[in-house]
């Protein structure tokens, strides 16, 4: 669960962001993130909250591992935990 999951912000409505997680659009709460978040930014989601805005230069590297994990079956523990993070966000 410590892993979190990164996603791209599509729109911001007050303390809620609509975020694209690898093609799935979900709602994430913004009360915990310590920088302003705008459409196009990437955030790291943990249990339904953005806990970090991911710096520009780091996005590609961060996404690669998750893309690999999300291709895995849920039986893989690490992939299962990443998918659980997606289940914690609202549609």
């Amino acid at each position: 669960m410590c892993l979190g999951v990164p996603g791209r912000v599509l729109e911001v409505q007050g303390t809620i962001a609509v975020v694209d997680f690898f093609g799935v659009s979900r709602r994430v709460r913004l009360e915990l993130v310590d920088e302003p978040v705008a459409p196009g930014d990437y955030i790291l989601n943990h249990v339904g909250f953005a806990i970090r805005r991911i710096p520009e230069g780091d996005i590609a590297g961060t996404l690669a591992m998750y893309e690999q994990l999300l291709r895995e079956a849920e039986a893989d523990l690490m992939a299962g935990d990443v998918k659980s993070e997606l289940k914690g966000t609202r549609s």
Partner: protein
Amino acid sequence: VSRDAAIGELKFRDPQRGAALAAALAKTVAGIGRAPVSVMHVCGSHEQAIARFGLRPAFPRDLHVIMGPGCPVCITDQPEVDEAVALARQGIRIATYGDMVRVPGTAASLADARSEGARVEVVYSIDQAIALAAAGPDPLVFFATGFETTAVATAAAILAGLPDNFFILSAHKYIPPVMEIVAEMPESRIEGFIAAGHAATITGWGVFEAFVARHRVPVVVAGFEPLDILAALVRLAEMIRDRVCAVDNMFPRCVSRDGNLVAQRQLWEVFRPIGGRWRGIAHVPNGNLRLLDRWSHLDARRRFAIDLNMLWDAAPSLLSQQCVCGDIMSGLKTPGDCPLFGADCVPDNPVGACMVSSEGTCRIWHEYGVASRVGVGRES
């Protein structure tokens, strides 16, 4: 497995860099001039990555990389599970994060209570628990588990406002104090720590400076990719070799010195640290997070009379007395040292919490076949 073959198995995006880091790690550890050298990480996701990407066989034989108390489900102690089970049996709806349902209390788990008819719901976020509570008038208790990375979400939800029928049973834990306990255990001889990148995103790496000053062991903050972990271990081995006692941040893209102050402010507006037991390890001063008095109207421990007596009608499992989860999380044993591992204790029928959780050492080693690859009972 030979080291070269192991490196060939590494599922790196950059295998050449992986091989170079593994070679640098071997050389640095050899340069320390004594063996074995034990280091500890405190994060289930790190252990998953080490196992999942086949790193462990690529570590030098003389470097013991031990997973400490880094699984929030595993360190949730029996009395805390007992409180949730008792509430569930008293007819209160319980919502909690997935793996907690199967974690054994003294004599029963929430799954046992559910099979007896209690209402126990699995959620993946506090928002889902809030939605469950909002759907009906009955009180709902959110059994809130997890380290500071998850506690901040509980805090933010409380500060944003909860339904009137929503209560919190906090078993949240705070990682920095338990590192003090493990560092003081003379038997474990941990010479350096790898800190979890995303927990440090919240706390900042500065939280470890006082720890380093007191215990004279280096701490390196690490990310979760295989190369991040190898690079952090190389740095930690260098610091051990050169007797550098400091905090080094090898995950600067996510972790700053001060951390996420917005999240920290919310955490300490809601919780206070108190001492409490971590399963199988010790009483950890300031290791548990409890609601501040101003939130007592939300505190399930104050709102409900929790009747633990009925738990004593059933005897604890005899097998559970052989469980060595605590020694594993303290770095004194590996899963391969446990007589139950893979025999009487398996993921479908776990005896100890470390076999329940996807972040537990035993579960991870079992799923990824680690024990057979590193050799069972390899401990010095």
